C-alpha cells in the first residue's frame, strides 16, 4: 500500500466500485479500501462466491452485481479488502487498519462511499437475543447461505421487508407472519407521488409480484399493525402486536425488523463535513452538490452514504463522482467531464422517479420513531432508556449532544450509531422542536474502537 494516492475510495459497494472503474480508465493512482473480504458492499455481498443456486434465490437485483464487480476486478485500482477506516480529516488524511496494523495515508481526492445501514428503531424488547434487523437476515443469507430454521416473524415497513420475505419463501422458510406497520394514511399521502413513480414502474411491478408470490405461498401479512413488542425473560419467546384494536401474540424465537435504511455518516461527520436533516428520508446526510462534492474540498460522497437512493442509483452516482475526481485532478476539462456524464445523469434521473413515492409510502410514523414507552432501552450499549432521555430534555437539554453528555447515551462501543437517530427524534418530541434542530452527535476519530496494540503500530511507523 502506498502512502499517497491520487484518488482514495472508501467502500466497496456499487458507488465505490463504479467510481474506481471510471477513474482508473484514465490512468490515475487509485486505491479502494473495503471493510469486507470481497467487493460488492452489503447489497451485493459475497456476489463472487455465492453458489449459483443461492444467487438465483436472492433474485435478479442481486445478480446484477456480478457484472459490476467483474468490471471492477479488471480495472487498475489497488484493492484492499478487510481494511477498516477509522478516521478521515479535512487535510485528506485517512487512518486505516489493515492486517491488524494502523497506518495513515493521504490522497488528493477522497470518495466516501460508505453506504447505508438499517435505521435502528427502539421498541420494547428490541435488545432481546432473537430480535435482529432484516438486513442482518439478508447478510446471513447472502454471505453464508444461513436462513431461519424454525420460522420467523418479519415486522416493520419498507421494500426490504418484502424482498427478504420473498427470498425466504424461495427456500422454504416458514414465515409465521409479516407485521406491516405502514400506517394506512401513508397510502393516501403518497398518492400524489404515484404518477412520477409510474415512470419507474418496473419497481412497482416487482413489488406486486413479490406480494402475489407471498400470498400464493400462504404467508399471512397483517397491514396496519402497531405497538410491536418483543417478549421473553432473557431471550425472545414471542412477539406481541396490535391489529385493528386487538392485541395478538405469536410465539417465535426469531423476529427480524426493518424500518428503512439511513446513510452511514460516521466518517463524513468525523471529517467535519456539513450535514443536514433530510425530512423526506427521515435521516441526517452529508450536504453535497450534484457531483457529490461535500463542504470540504477534496472529499466527495456517492451512493447511499450521501442520501438513500438505492443500489442502481449508487452505481451512477459513483460514476459521476469518478468523473468529478478526474476533473479535480486536472485530467478532464469541465467540458469533458460534463459530456461524459450526460447519459449517466439521465439514467440516474430515471432511477430516482420512484424515490419520492417510496419515501412517502414507507415513511415511518413519528409515534414509532420517538417511542413514548419510557422503559424502552434506546442506547443499546449503555442501556439508557427513553425515559432517561425525556428526563434530560425536561431538565433543559435540547440537543442530542447535551443529552449524550448528561446520560452517557451514545458513549458505548457503537459510538451512537444505533441511537443517534432515535435520540434526535425523542429529543425533538419531548422538547416540542423540529428534529433538524436537535443536532447530530459530533463524530470523533477513531470512529471504530482501536486497541492500544493497534494504535502502537501507528506510532512505530511514524517514528
Amino acid at each position: 500500500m502506498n502512502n499517497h494516492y491520487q484518488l482514495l475510495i472508501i467502500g466497496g459497494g456499487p458507488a465505490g466500485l463504479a467510481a474506481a472503474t471510471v477513474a482508473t480508465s484514465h490512468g490515475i493512482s487509485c486505491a479502494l479500501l473495503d471493510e469486507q473480504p470481497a467487493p460488492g458492499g452489503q447489497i451485493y455481498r459475497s456476489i463472487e462466491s455465492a453458489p449459483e443456486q443461492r444467487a438465483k434465490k436472492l433474485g435478479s437485483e442481486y445478480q446484477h452485481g456480478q457484472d459490476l464487480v467483474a468490471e471492477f476486478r479488471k480495472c487498475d485500482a489497488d484493492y484492499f479488502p478487510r481494511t477498516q477506516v477509522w478516521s478521515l480529516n479535512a487535510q485528506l488524511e485517512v487512518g486505516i487498519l489493515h492486517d491488524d496494523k494502523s497506518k495513515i495515508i493521504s490522497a488528493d481526492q477522497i470518495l466516501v462511499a460508505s453506504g447505508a445501514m438499517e435505521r435502528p428503531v427502539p421498541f420494547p424488547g428490541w435488545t432481546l437475543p432473537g430480535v435482529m434487523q432484516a438486513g442482518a437476515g439478508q447478510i446471513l443469507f447472502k454471505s453464508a447461505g444461513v436462513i431461519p430454521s424454525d420460522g420467523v416473524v418479519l415486522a416493520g415497513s419498507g421494500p426490504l421487508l418484502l424482498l427478504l420475505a420473498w427470498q425466504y419463501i424461495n427456500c422454504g422458510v416458514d414465515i409465521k407472519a409479516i407485521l406491516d406497520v405502514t400506517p394506512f394514511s401513508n397510502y393516501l399521502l403518497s398518492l400524489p407521488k404515484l404518477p412520477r413513480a409510474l415512470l419507474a414502474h418496473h419497481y412497482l411491478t416487482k413489488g406486486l409480484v413479490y406480494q402475489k408470490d407471498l400470498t400464493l405461498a400462504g404467508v399471512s401479512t397483517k397491514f396496519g399493525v402497531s405497538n410491536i413488542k418483543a417478549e421473553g425473560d432473557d431471550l425472545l419467546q414471542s412477539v406481541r402486536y396490535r391489529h385493528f384494536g386487538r392485541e395478538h401474540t405469536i410465539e417465535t424465537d426469531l423476529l427480524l425488523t426493518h424500518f428503512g435504511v439511513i446513510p452511514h455518516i460516521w466518517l463524513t461527520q468525523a471529517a467535519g463535513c456539513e450535514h443536514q436533516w433530510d425530512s423526506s428520508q427521515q435521516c441526517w446526510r452529508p450536504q453535497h452538490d450534484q457531483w457529490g462534492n461535500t463542504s470540504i474540498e477534496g472529499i466527495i460522497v456517492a451512493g447511499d452514504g450521501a442520501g438513500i437512493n438505492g443500489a442502481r442509483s449508487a452505481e451512477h452516482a459513483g460514476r459521476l463522482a469518478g468523473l468529478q475526481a478526474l476533473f479535480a485532478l486536472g485530467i478532464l476539462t469541465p467540458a469533458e467531464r460534463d459530456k461524459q456524464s450526460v447519459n449517466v445523469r439521465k439514467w440516474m434521473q430515471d432511477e430516482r422517479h420512484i424515490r419520492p413515492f417510496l419515501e412517502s409510502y414507507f415513511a415511518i410514523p413519528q409515534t414509532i420513531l420517538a417511542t413514548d414507552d419510557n422503559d424502552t432501552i434506546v442506547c443499546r450499549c449503555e442501556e439508557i432508556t427513553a425515559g432517561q432521555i425525556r428526563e434530560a430534555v425536561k431538565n433543559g437539554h435540547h440537543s442530542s449532544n447535551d443529552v449524550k453528555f448528561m446520560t452517557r447515551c451514545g458513549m458505548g462501543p457503537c459510538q451512537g450509531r444505533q441511537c443517534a437517530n432515535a435520540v434526535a427524534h425523542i429529543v425533538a418530541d419531548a422538547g416540542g422542536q423540529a428534529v433538524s434542530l436537535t443536532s447530530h452527535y459530533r463524530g470523533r476519530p477513531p470512529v471504530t474502537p482501536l486497541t492500544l496494540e493497534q494504535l502502537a503500530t501507528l506510532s512505530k511507523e511514524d517514528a
Partner: protein
Amino acid sequence: MFKQLTNNQIETVEVILNGQKVQVPQGTTVAAMALTQGLRFTRTTPVSNSKRAPFCMMGVCYDCLMSIDGKANQRACATYVQNGMKIETQQGVGSALGDGSGE
C-alpha cells in the same frame, strides 16, 4: 433458530466454540457460525448482565462482541472463522474494551 444451506463445494475448518469442536464452512463469520450452532446469546452486557446476540451483522451495532483467541470485544460478525480459532461467549466487559490483553 438458523440453519446453513448445504454447500458441498466449500471446505470446512474446525473452530472451538465454548470448548466444543465445531466444523464450519470456510468464509463464514464467527457470528453466523455461532447462530447456526444454536448459540442463543453471544455475550452479556457490562451494565445489567443482560443477554445479547448479533443484531445488525454488518459491524455497526457492536452487540456481537465475543472473546476470540483470548481477545475480548471482537465483533463476531466482522471476524471470519479460521482453523483452530477459539471463540467464547463474552461475559460483561471481558477485558477493558479492546485492549487485547485477554491472553
